[in-house]
């Protein structure tokens, strides 16, 4: 469902010159799978999801999402993905319902279909109390539920989630986890980037460890444990990125 082959992304920076954000990244994520992208801050997780989401164009390599090429069919790719990030903000002066209608129309949903879908999501995500309230007056948890609804309005087969629980409390994080579980059950492909080990351990079917723009290992948690000889994911991760645990 999502394939990347030799994907690279190089930024030009006036001070630092050429910055390699992604280098020869290749992997495949299958339908009904939560594919974790695990890495420290600045490892290249967000850049990878932005390239796959056609927000950025790759410098080299290729990728397909839901069968569409990110270079040649960007609009089709965007039509078939849901994009959710932890830093996602909403339009403060619009109501939650207006935001859902706005994005639904951009996704090309008909008015009747859109109204039906919004009602469904209001029910599923328990948004009845605040669906007609202005977004700048919603709590962080309520805002994140609106963001989830926005990202799945068009029922996309592929979901990109870039640290979706960053800065959220336990209850809201749990809502997101349940949402990811539900999406997997419905057969969606989910690319889930995080630096929180417990989340990766709990949710991911397979994990790609990314470090300094390169994928250093891909596999199930058990495969990675076997490869490193460590039990805890944290130690597995440190071992894979070449950082030794401090003996003190």
């Amino acid at each position, binding site marked *: 469902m999502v394939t990347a082959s030799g994907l690279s992304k190089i930024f030009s920076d006036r001070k630092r010159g050429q910055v390699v954000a992604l280098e020869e990244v290749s992997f495949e994520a299958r339908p009904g799978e939560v594919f974790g992208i695990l890495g420290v801050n600045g490892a290249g997780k967000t850049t990878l999801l932005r390239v796959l989401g*056609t927000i*950025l164009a790759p410098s080299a390599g290729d990728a397909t999402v839901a069968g569409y090429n990110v270079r040649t069919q*960007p609009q089709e790719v965007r039509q078939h993905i849901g*994009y959710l*990030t932890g830093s*996602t903000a909403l339009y403060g002066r*619009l109501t939650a319902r207006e935001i859902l209608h706005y994005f639904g*129309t*951009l996704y090309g949903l008909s008015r009747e279909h859109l109204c039906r879908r919004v009602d469904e999501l209001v029910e599923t995500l328990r948004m009845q109390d605040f669906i007609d309230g202005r977004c700048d007056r919603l709590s962080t948890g309520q805002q994140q539920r609106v963001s989830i609804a926005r990202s799945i309005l068009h029922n996309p087969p592929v979901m990109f989630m870039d640290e979706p629980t960053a800065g959220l409390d336990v209850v809201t994080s749990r809502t997101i986890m349940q949402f990811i579980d539900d999406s997997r059950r419905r057969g969606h492909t989910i690319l889930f980037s995080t630096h929180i080990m417990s989340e990766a351990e709990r949710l991911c079917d397979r994990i790609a460890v990314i470090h300094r723009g390169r994928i250093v290992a891909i596999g199930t948690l058990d495969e990675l444990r076997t490869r490193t000889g460590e039990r805890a994911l944290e130690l597995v991760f440190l071992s894979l990125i070449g950082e030794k645990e401090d003996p003190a």
Partner: protein
Amino acid sequence: MNRTFVVFWKELREVLRDRRVLFSTIVSPLLLTPLLLWGIGLMVQQRQESAQKVIIPVAVVAPRGGEEFIAALEKAGFAVRRLQEREQAETQLRHRVVKAVVLLAADFDQRLHNESTAQVQVLFDPLNDSSRDAVQRLRTVSEQLSAEWVQRRLARRFIGAEFTQPIALTTQAIQTENPAGNLILSIILPYVIVLSAFFGAVSPAFDLIAGEKERGTMETLLATPATRRQIVWGKFLTVAVVCMVAAVFAMLGMLLAFALPASGQIFSEQAGKFSVSSWAMGILVVTLIPLTVFYSAVLTIISTFARNQKEAQTYLIPLSTLVVLPAAVSLVPARTTFWNWPEKSRVTRSFLVKAAFISATLAPLTKCQVWPSRKHSDRLGSIRAGE
């Protein structure tokens, strides 16, 4: 619906809920500008009226006679202090006890009656407003009394008053389609419109693009099937509409201000006497279109280029100079007709000339404003060309 218009309607709805934009584009020009000008006009009017009523203390040093002149001063509202010594009078002037000192020559009455010129010297403090006003009023009194004495001297020789005035020229103002108030309006209005159009669009332009990047909503918008061009067009149209609305309301606000007699007096004695035909108003609004398109496009480019609203504000400072200086050209009355435009209204003609000047000065930029280049698309978040 085309995605450009989906973006446009959403942005317009958001802008209409932004109190800052509503205040700066509608409330301020329509309510505050006329009220402010009316208040200032009222103050000026009251000051002029009270200046005429106020009693001005003056010292008069008259060694002999001068009673008729002194009586004329008292009749004209001066409080006369008769002093013997010039030094004493000067001291009082320096201490601002009196506003001026009138020195009548010792032979004042004698020269007056001998058909010669009687000398009056006035001492005043040039740094004191009241002292300068006193001189002005003393001059009036002197001229009036002098005119009376001319009549008396002529009558004594049995000569009529016409003797001193071989030719009489009189003037009479007639009502025209373009009263004098229009001249003032034609100078002020383009300046106000040009500035209001530009500064009215700044807040929405920076909020819609740089603000979206800053808040993190741009990323989700870029992940939708809307193309970069559709997004830019939708936002650009919104900015252009706000720009136009700001200019139109500034124009209405100024017309309203001129309609109030008190505020009109700030600019002209012909306060309230102006007319702008609906035809002229229509032309004015049409002329605004290229101006608003230009400003909106420049602001959209800046907003796209900047990473956040703060950065956009720093780019605005030099650009403001480019807008303010050409706009100031409108403060110079247009004496040259650039083309034979029907003289329906001076306001329209003047505005057309100035708008054309501004557009021509900055025209080379207009090309890139509407069609963002590849580089600008990169700033928006995509490096995909031809999308």
